[in-house]
Every structure is written in C-alpha cells, then in structure tokens.
C-alpha cells in the first residue's frame, strides 16, 4: 500500500501542499510534518482534548481527524493564536490566575476557551464548564482555568 494522498491545507494562515499517508491523522501532520508540537498527542481517543485545534471554524480533536480529510481546509493551532509572540488577553489571564501548572493541557484548553468566548462572549460558570468539558487537566487546574476564562470575558465587557 503506502499510496499517499496530495492535499492542500492552510495552517495558521499559510498554505501548504503536502503528501499524506491514508493513516496519518491531522495531529500527525501538524506535529511530524510541520513541526507544530503545541498540539499534544495524549489519549488519541478523543477524550483529553490536548490535541484540540480549529478546523474550518470549529474546534476538533485532531487525533480523530485524518490528514486526508482536511484537504482544502483551514486549520488554526495554538501556534497561530499569538503569531507575533504577543499573548492574547485569554493567555495573559491563564498566567495571572495560575491556570498553568505542567502546561501539557494548556494549548488544548486555550483553543477550546478561545472558541467558547467567540461563541459566548460572557459565559456563565456552567457554560465555561460545558465548553471545556472535552479538555482534561491532570494537574487539576480546573478552578483556575475557569476563573481565567471568566476574567478574560470580564475584561472584554
């Protein structure tokens, strides 16, 4: 087998033409082909959210998307959130609130929280919990993460 598929995909604003294996996931493509290792490879079954990226305007677990499926699509990863190195308000609030311990879950949490605030600019605590239900934090920073998201929303008011 080993027959590759040609795809064109825009990642963090840059168009890329790539040859991908049928078995490669979007996560493999990002990490191994493009060196974008901010998206983490963790559970690989869609439970932890460490691999969360935005695909065509919606967040997805990139471990559950084949690279071939994203042909023609647009992907944004954590590296695309602050391309010029200036952190977003949400990222700043994660830092002030101690919402980052080991940091392994943080890229996924930030992608999910950015998506949540775009959909619901002023969420309730329950809405934050629901919006981040697909992102596990084994350091247990849930309280601080929720506070950081609420503070970012407050700042926008």
């Amino acid at each position, binding site marked *: *087998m080993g*027959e590759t*598929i040609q795809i064109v995909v825009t990642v963090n604003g840059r168009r890329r033409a790539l040859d991908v294996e*049928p*078995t490669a*996931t979007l996560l493999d493509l990002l990490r191994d082909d493009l060196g974008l290792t901010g998206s983490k490879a963790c559970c*690989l*079954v*869609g*439970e932890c*959210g460490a691999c*969360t990226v935005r695909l065509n305007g*919606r*967040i*997805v*677990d990139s*471990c*559950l*998307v*084949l690279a*071939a*499926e994203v*042909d023609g699509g647009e992907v944004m990863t954590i590296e695309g959130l602050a391309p010029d190195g200036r952190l977003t308000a949400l990222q700043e609030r994660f830092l002030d609130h101690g919402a980052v311990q080991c940091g392994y879950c943080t890229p996924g949490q930030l992608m*999910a929280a950015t*998506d*949540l605030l775009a959909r619901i600019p002023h969420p309730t605590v329950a809405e934050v919990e*629901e*919006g981040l*239900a*697909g*992102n*596990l934090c084994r350091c247990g920073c849930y309280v601080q993460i929720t506070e950081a998201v609420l503070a970012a929303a407050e700042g926008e008011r």
Partner: protein
Amino acid sequence: MHRFVYERPEALADAVELFARHGAAARPLAGGTDLIIGLRDGSARPAVVVDLKRIAELPPTIEEQGSWLRISATVVMSDLLADARIRHEFPALAEAAAAVGSVQIRNRATVAGNICNASPAADTAPPLLVYGAVVVAVSDAGTRRIPLTDFFVRSGVTTLRSDEFVTAIELPRPSAPLGAVHLRRTRRRGHDLASVTLSCAIDRDGVTRLAYGSVGPRPILVVDESGRLADRGASDTVKEAILDRLFSAASPSPRSMRASPEYRLAMLRVLGRRAVRVALVRLDGGVQDG
C-alpha cells in the same frame, strides 16, 4: 494504525459503486469519532475507507421534504443543536445531541454515524425512535427506507447490508406539538457513555412513546396507547405498573463495567417516571428542565 485505502468520491454513484465492489471490506467515514479509534486499536479493519463528506449529493444540511425533515448523513451534532426546527419540534433529539461527548466531539460526530455504530448506549437512538425516524440507505439495488425500529440488531450490528450505506435520517414533523424529553444517567459528564438513556414523547391524544437504551443489546421503543400513563389523574401505583410492563424487555448486561444490572433497572424506572412528568409539563406548554 491499521492500513487502508482512502477514497473520497465526489458523486453518490461513485460511492455506491465502491460499496458494491468492496462490500464488507469498505467502511463509510463521516465524522470518524468512532471509526478512527477503531482503525487505531484494530477493532475496525476495513480494506477501504470511503469518506462521505465530499459527495455532492450529501452536503451537511437538514432539509424540509413535505412533512418530513431530512438530516443528511454528514450532519454533525453541533449542526442539529444550531437548527431551530430541531430544537423546537424535536427537543428530545436536541437534548440528546447536546449530551454527546464534548464540543470537539459534537463538531465532528454525525447523527448517522451514531446510529450506524449501533452502540446500545447511542445517545440519539432513543429520541429518534420516539419521533418515528426512518433511515435512508442506498446501494446498487436502489434506495431503502428502513424504519429505525427495524434497524438495530445488537451492539455494532444493524440490518444494513454490506453493500449499503446511510445517506440520511428522516423525521416526520409532528402535526401538533408533542411533550418530549431526553434523560440520561452517566457516571461522568463529557467523557463517558451513558449508563441508561431514555426518551419520552407524549401527544395530545395521550399516547406515550418511550425509548430506552444501554439496558440491553439494542435500544427499544415501547408505546402506551391506553392513555393512562399520560393521565394526570392516574395514581403513581397505576403508572408504575404500566412502566414495569413497558420496561420488561430491558436486560442489562451483567458484564458491563459501567453499572450493575440492578442499578440500571432501578434507574430506568426513575428516569421513566421523571420523563413522563416532564413531558406532560412540556405538553402543556410549560418549561421544565429534564
């Protein structure tokens, strides 16, 4: 990951041809939230994976066809939740879709895939059963419309033939408002399959339709035509006796790691009573959380 050939037909006829040629060796790919896990852990070993998302005839839309709504096979849970017709006319389906996985999963997982995977715990199966859904499947031999009540066989097995795949799920739009609700018991929100799922829809004539899952090899639809379950004056004892009879086909597996059969059967009755109560309030136009 298990190796396979990836196909992305752009016309329905090409997809039909692929399934006619490969039969059981081909697997349709819609959201991939079950299939890709299976490909990785070796529980799914297709020679060919057919991506349905580029087929021109299967855009991710929910269309009105006379008195029916047609949910295309590529419609994801988030699309259902965003659709006002689904939320207003089929609230139990919207509630079930909202309970699936997480935002990331709901952005990818399709309703058709949820049904085809045929998990006894499939969240959307009970509401689709109470609303009288029909599965539309296509093959070389033409199109078949399969009532959902004739679709599930057991976990992972449906009455689809190996050369067929699902193109849509159709729902008859209720002529008068129903009172409906979807309830679920799970160990953990966001990441776990349900331990018990139950949907209830009551119409103006007092006919109560209940469908339940996760308590046997397949989701089951039962109907109380007597009107007594929906009778606001009937005593709890009478209603409980009716529910006991309706739930007699429940046979939870003793080997499940999620919950014991005793727990599931007890919760089924609790959810049954609660669902009838909530559905009646909603039938009267009231707002009541599930």
